[in-house]
């Protein structure tokens, strides 16, 4: 009798959403092309077609003889929708009506944010001049002067403009049902 012994890497998963799985596999194809993919639970034709198409080896509903689980830090597949923070953006020109700034990271604005413009970030916003445009942030905080016209949405919650009374206010995220608004400065800033 002639025999060989191999050790092999198995990627075990369950599928909730076909499309999510396919996009995950296609971004991480390089990582799993030599793995055995073990899918627990039923799989649709779409998935099996996709796996055959990509010539990935897979088995379905199989109980492995568990010897040793590879540490998770060894296989570190990329998340499909990982939010990558760029860095930090400084805007020195006025934001004019109709302009939209979308940014993954923190934004510091020195000049005016005019009515009809919009800033959308995943980070923090610090606005130091007059704000009449709209602001949408999912960061840790927003620092903003008092404003009547602006439409401020923080973590999906519309901030009441009447709460922003002072010259410079800080809207801070503590938990999903705890957003605080505090005063930073009651006086006008004087830039030297």
């Amino acid at each position, binding site marked *: 009798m002639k025999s060989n012994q191999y050790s092999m890497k198995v990627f075990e998963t369950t599928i909730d959403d076909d499309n999510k799985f396919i996009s995950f596999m296609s971004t991480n194809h390089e990582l799993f092309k030599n793995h055995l993919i073990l899918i627990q639970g039923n799989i649709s034709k779409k998935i099996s077609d996709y796996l055959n198409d990509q010539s990935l080896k897979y088995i379905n509903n199989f109980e492995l003889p568990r010897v040793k689980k590879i540490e998770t830090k060894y296989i570190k597949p990329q998340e499909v929708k990982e939010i990558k923070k760029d860095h930090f953006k400084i805007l020195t020109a006025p934001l004019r009506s109709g302009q939209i700034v979308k940014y993954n990271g923190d934004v510091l604005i020195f000049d005016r944010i005019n009515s*009809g413009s919009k800033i959308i970030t995943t980070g923090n916003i610090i606005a130091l001049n007059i704000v009449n445009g709209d602001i949408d942030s999912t960061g840790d905080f927003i620092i903003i002067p008092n404003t009547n016209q602006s439409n401020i949405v923080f973590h999906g919650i519309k901030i009441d403009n009447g709460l922003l009374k002072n010259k410079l206010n800080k809207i801070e995220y503590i938990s999903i049902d705890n957003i605080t608004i505090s005063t930073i400065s009651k006086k006008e800033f004087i830039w030297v």
Partner: protein
Amino acid sequence: MGMIIAIISGKGGVGKTTATANIGLGIALNNRRCVVVDFDIGQRNLDMTLGLENRVVYDMIQVMDEEASLRQALIKSKISDNLYFLAASQTRDKTALDSLKIKQLIEDLSSEFEYILLDAPAGIESGYEHTIEFADTAIVVVNPEVSSIRDSDRAIGVLDSKSQKVKDGFDVDKYLIINRIVPEMVESGEMLSSDDILEILSIKLLGKVAEDKGVIDASNQGVPIILNPKSMAGAAYRRIADRLCGDNVPIEEPKVQKRGLVGRLKGMFS
């Protein structure tokens, strides 16, 4: 090389065409060669404001399509030998414009004239984008009201992203004319002050023009208000034209006109 100035506003009806006609004539009266071009294809108005309605034979679309020469299409003003006018087509629409042809036309004009004024259409669509594409200076005409200011703000935003000069890495010079100021309303706080408008738009001020009922009659007659020595608006346009010609004329604030006894009596009975 001539100076290519686009006159823009975003919103319609704020006085772009009136401003173009008056500034063009004012520059010509300063002995500079000036051409005004109507870019409002399909809605030609500048010919009437300049009183050249019956002189239009060829328009700029025909020049660009080489159906007529530039010399044939340029109309000399009755008032000044230095002022020429190039009409928009009344029968075509804004889709007739083409970047390459506009560039050629503007180059031809700037080799002959010192000032080329382009009267932009209202809005920020293709007609507007073509007008500002090759301009190196823009004059923004704004009325002291929020809708006009927001539209101008948007128009400046489009200018800063679509203009060829910006794409080449330079800044387009932008100047502001605040038109139709009613000094009484500014004084009583009902109308936005010039300082507020300048603060919002953050561009340089070129002039302030008071509301003047004479402008309507002047447009109807085809005699620009700048020729009326008694009109405050006319004087304001004269100063603006002088500034564009390089004279250092201080900005004059439109004042509340004090009425005499006769005027006050008239006011009581009207």
